[in-house]
């Protein structure tokens, strides 16, 4: 069985986004080689839920977020948003669909046009889509700026560089909200911010989510932040999903050895706690020629021969907790799959 399985997909009428067998590959020049950025992942997000996607650089988490927006369209796979198949939409229809899914990026300063004033930046989506009269648009912009904690008066007079990083991220959030989207994809929205400002932005996202009935996909490499904001977390490694679980459960009972590594790498703000040494050596291998079997096997302390040849499939080890591992830390060994040989 290829891919990492779909056991964790839910058959719920509240599913807002359902991604199946998503594959994103980028060819490398004319070498015939390709970067396997995302290799057959599936997940779903319910209305009002926050899905966290966590993993190291190069695991495909950002590519996944962008593939949902068709930026660029995936190599194969299905992305259903609110009942519409996004991959088969025409350019114009996709543009329209993007008003319902918005993105926030990592670097708040470079994602805002430095030469325009902040109020115009937030106004632009409304002008493009001709929503209401000019006066109504401006009123909507001022209202949303107030919501995210930016003084509209100052926004009308200032350019992005006159604001701090945290404030620029608030402006990005305002811009993404102004079209009243159903879902926001946040790609490392707080990684570039100071810890104290991080907390402000995370709290703001939580408030806005309630107020605007948003569904969030929160992509980050810092499991502590992801855990705090998410209802459900998918851990990615080298283009595959290794574990899916509710966020509290993931922290209490990590099942995949890689999840445990991620958890133990987070610095503990307490000098009396000895630094746990479950850290792995090295870095993820190249996604150009990913290892056979389980993709984590070259760095995994528990790897066996089976891990080097047979790719694990996501399976449920307790209600709502899924892992793709032959020898998980909890939940018992994977049953040996019946092969026709």
């Amino acid at each position, binding site marked *: 069985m290829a891919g990492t399985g779909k056991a964790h997909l839910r058959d719920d009428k509240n599913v807002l986004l359902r991604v199946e067998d998503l594959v994103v590959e980028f060819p490398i020049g004319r070498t015939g080689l390709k970067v396997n950025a995302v290799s057959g992942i599936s997940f779903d997000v319910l209305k009002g839920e926050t899905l966290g996607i966590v993993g*190291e*650089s*190069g695991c495909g988490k950002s590519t996944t977020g962008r593939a949902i927006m068709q930026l660029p369209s995936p190599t194969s796979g299905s992305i259903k948003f609110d009942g519409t198949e996004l991959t088969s939409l025409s350019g114009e229809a996709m543009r329209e669909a993007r008003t319902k899914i918005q993105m926030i990026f990592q670097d708040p300063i470079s994602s805002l046009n430095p030469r325009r004033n902040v109020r115009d930046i937030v106004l632009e989506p409304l002008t493009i889509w001709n929503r209401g009269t000019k006066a109504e648009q401006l009123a909507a912009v001022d209202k949303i700026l107030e919501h995210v*904690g930016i003084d509209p008066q100052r926004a009308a007079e200032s350019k992005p560089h006159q604001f*701090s*990083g*945290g*404030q620029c991220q608030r402006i990005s959030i305002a811009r993404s909200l102004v079209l009243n989207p159903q879902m926001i994809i946040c790609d490392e929205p707080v990684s570039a911010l*100071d*810890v*104290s*400002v*991080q*907390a*402000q932005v*995370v*709290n*703001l996202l*939580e408030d806005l989510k309630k107020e605007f009935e948003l569904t969030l996909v929160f992509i980050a*490499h*810092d*499991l*502590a*932040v992801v*855990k*705090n*904001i*998410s*209802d459900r977390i998918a851990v990615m490694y080298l283009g595959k999903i290794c574990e899916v679980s509710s*966020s*509290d459960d993931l*922290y209490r009972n990590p099942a995949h050895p890689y999840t445990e*590594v*991620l*958890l*133990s*790498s*987070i*610095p*503990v*703000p*307490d*000098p*009396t*706690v000895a*630094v746990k040494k479950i*850290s*792995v*050596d*090295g*870095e993820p291998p190249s996604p150009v020629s990913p290892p056979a079997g389980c993709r984590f096997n070259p760095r995994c302390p528990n790897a066996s021969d089976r891990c080097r040849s047979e790719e694990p499939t996501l399976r449920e080890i307790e209600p709502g907790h899924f892992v793709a591992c032959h020898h998980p830390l909890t939940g018992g060994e994977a049953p040996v799959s019946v092969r026709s040989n």
Partner: protein
Amino acid sequence: MNQSDMVRSEHEPLVETIDVKTHFKTARGIARAVDGVSIQIRRGQSLGVVGESGSGKTVLSRSIMGLLPRNGVIREGSVRYQGQEIGNRSDKEMQSIWGREMAMIFQDPMTSLNPVMKVGKQISESLRKNLGMSSSEALAVAEKLLHDVRIPEPARRLNQYPHELSGGMRQRVMIAIAMACGPNMLFADEPTTALDVTVQAQILELLSEQKRDRNMSLLLVTHNLGVVAGYTDEIAVMYGGKVVEKAPTKTLFANTKMPYTEALLSSIPRLDQPSHSRLSTIPGRPPDIVHPPKGCRFAPRCAYVRDLCLNEEPELQQADSPDHTYRCFYPVGSPEYLERRVELTRKGELVASEGSN
């Protein structure tokens, strides 16, 4: 240096700053980036300098190392290295110190490495220049340095360019360059902020290992108190250009005095909290260093502020344990602090102190 000086210098701090001020002339006025900082670092010791953006932590480390722009800077106070004043030296005089005595690694390894020079050449450059090695000797040492910082296949890496390496590898190369001439003092300015958590753990581990093996002193600049907790002996918390609390790491965490330090600590998301817990934030923003507030610089954002704080600047106070100092009239645990804390808890503001700037 005569005999008695040498003996004395062993007990003296390796690096010491006395009331260092670094002010920049800007269009808006004088920016007091570092405003009277006195710190000491002993040999083999590590000091964490922690603060938000704009607290002056980076400018402080650059002031010690003498890496400041030539124009538009007003500097005062004294910087001593092994008992000798280096604060007033010219760049030319500092060249004997850079690399051999003090070295620095920066946050973004991609922009600090030369993109068109092979890694091997970048490491061996300072060996040839400072230690007068031949290029083949220097390359051999460079290979060993790459091995020391745990880069696989060091011989092959010597001939690679920075873009061929991952972010973590590049930061390892930066560390190898800094280590090349065996400095006594290493400044690491947010060395892991641009890296993944897993790689961050590896780099911090590597830094503390190098520090131990070489009996080197380390000044670790970061905005994350979590990062310094496990890797430093002492911590100085900076705010608005001043050190507002300084203590041995364990004391600082166990017996926090400054409400700012406490607020910084509680804004770190913790894994042991259930998800969707409200994160506590520090309202407002760091002070304007061109026009700093009159009293305590943290007062406008402090939940425990009183009239005195707004009018008078607190001097450095001595805490119960030696080596522990702070700048606060009503420190954590004082009757006034506790009284306000009860009020805040009653109003439900303590857990959810909102960020409303």
